[in-house]
């Protein structure tokens, strides 16, 4: 596939690795924010290929994983209302809530459909005019504009039975929250490639300027990731911190202005509840007043009981970067991809699932 194969070239990867080994002299800790990066790093064995003085940590960039259990309980409560069809991305359906999961309520008779796209949920609404279609809107800045576009499409086509439960979250504010918590010391951050394709590189500048942490926006193929690490090593060695785009074919400094405009037209910034972190101000998106008629929270009576996390699950501290799956006593013993206890084992890009599938002899 064009724009993929070239960036998997083993010779180029080898040369980049040689340069990283040659230039990296300090003991440093880098975080890849995005779950997609975590998967790629593990799949291609990048952790083992980097010099031993470079430690890689996984961040909270997995939307399924960071969805608060209270919000998942809301989605489950909505699925039990009469005349409702829940439309959701696949991974979300399997995540255990406090008492059930969307998969379980589906088995009990609720109508829960897995969709590939928010647009598919709009079509579901068009084809089922006597039902209320509620799309579970999870995702960062990559996905939020697509959901905004789906709402505008529903409005234009006069579809009045389409709703979204907006659980969208924003990356730069949570990066700031994690840095301010001070639980983990970082020298560099691999910034998310496709979030940045929308928001650009400017929103991360505070990390380099105020926290003196190197930033590189990276793509997802092995050579892309090594380019990102190479940039971080160079910045750290020179003590010159900036935000470098190491994924120039997909990311412009200003991002994608039409997509940003559309997202800002439909959503406004709000607080958000993050699993393992709690409520973080100005780190989420809710529908603007003008689009309230598409807002599931405003249009349905959602009744939930108090939420609680699964006993023993440490997804929260794994998402904050202070633990790894290997620190969890449920990992691989009770919690597996077949019988997940926490979301990080459900999502294909969750840290626990990634350790299970690609870690050395941890899992299957």
């Amino acid at each position, binding site marked *: *596939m*064009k*724009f*993929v194969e*070239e960036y998997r070239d083993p*010779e*180029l990867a080898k*040369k*980049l690795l*040689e*340069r990283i080994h040659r230039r990296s002299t300090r003991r440093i800790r880098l975080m890849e924010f*995005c*779950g*997609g990066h975590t998967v790629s790093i593990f799949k291609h064995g990048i952790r083992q290929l980097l010099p031993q003085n470079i430690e890689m940590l996984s961040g909270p*960039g*997995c*939307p*399924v994983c960071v969805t608060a259990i209270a919000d998942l309980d809301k989605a489950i409560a909505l699925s039990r209302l009469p005349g409702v069809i829940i439309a959701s*991305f696949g*991974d979300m359906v399997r995540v255990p809530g406090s008492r059930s999961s969307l998969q379980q309520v589906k088995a009990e008779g609720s109508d829960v459909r897995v969709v*590939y*796209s*928010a*647009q*598919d949920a709009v079509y579901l609404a068009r084809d089922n005019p006597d039902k209320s279609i509620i799309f579970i809107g*999870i*995702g*960062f800045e*990559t*996905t939020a*504009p*697509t959901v905004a*576009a789906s709402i*505008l*499409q529903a409005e234009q086509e006069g579809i009045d039975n389409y709703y979204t439960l907006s659980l969208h979250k924003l990356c730069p504010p949570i990066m700031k929250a994690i840095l301010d918590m001070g639980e983990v010391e970082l020298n560099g951050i691999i910034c*998310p*490639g*496709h*979030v940045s*394709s*929308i928001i650009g590189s400017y929103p991360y500048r505070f990390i380099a300027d105020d926290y003196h942490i190197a930033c590189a926006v990276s793509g*997802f193929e092995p*050579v892309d990731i090594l*380019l990102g690490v190479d940039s971080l090593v160079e910045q750290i060695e020179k003590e010159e911190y900036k935000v470098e785009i190491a994924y*120039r*074919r*997909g*990311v*412009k400094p200003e991002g*994608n202005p*039409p*997509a940003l405009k*559309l997202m800002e037209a439909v959503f406004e910034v709000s607080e958000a509840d993050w699993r393992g972190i709690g409520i973080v101000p100005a780190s989420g998106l809710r529908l603007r007043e003008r689009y309230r008629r598409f807002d599931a929270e405003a249009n349905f009576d959602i009744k939930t009981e108090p939420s609680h996390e699964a006993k023993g699950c440490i997804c929260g501290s794994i998402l904050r970067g202070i633990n790894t799956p290997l620190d969890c006593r449920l990992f691989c013993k009770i919690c597996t991809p077949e019988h997940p206890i926490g979301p990080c084992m459900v*999502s294909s*890009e969750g840290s626990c699932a990634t350790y299970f599938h690609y870690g050395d002899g941890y899992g299957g």
Partner: protein
Amino acid sequence: MCLAIPALVKSIDGYLAEVDIDGVTRQVSIQLTPDVKVGDYVLLHTGYAINVIDEVEAEETLKILKELSQAQ
């Protein structure tokens, strides 16, 4: 979740486009990339083109990488 893959735009009809993803044809939304043209490659995420791939930058990156590998 933020996975996006390259897709080649084959035809455009309003806010929908037909794209080729490594031999598979699919209809996608181009609401987020209103300036896209037939023949462009886009980054496709959950049925939406989220950006147009910059081919010039892609070639430039590969050129730098190849120079690097020859220099050593």
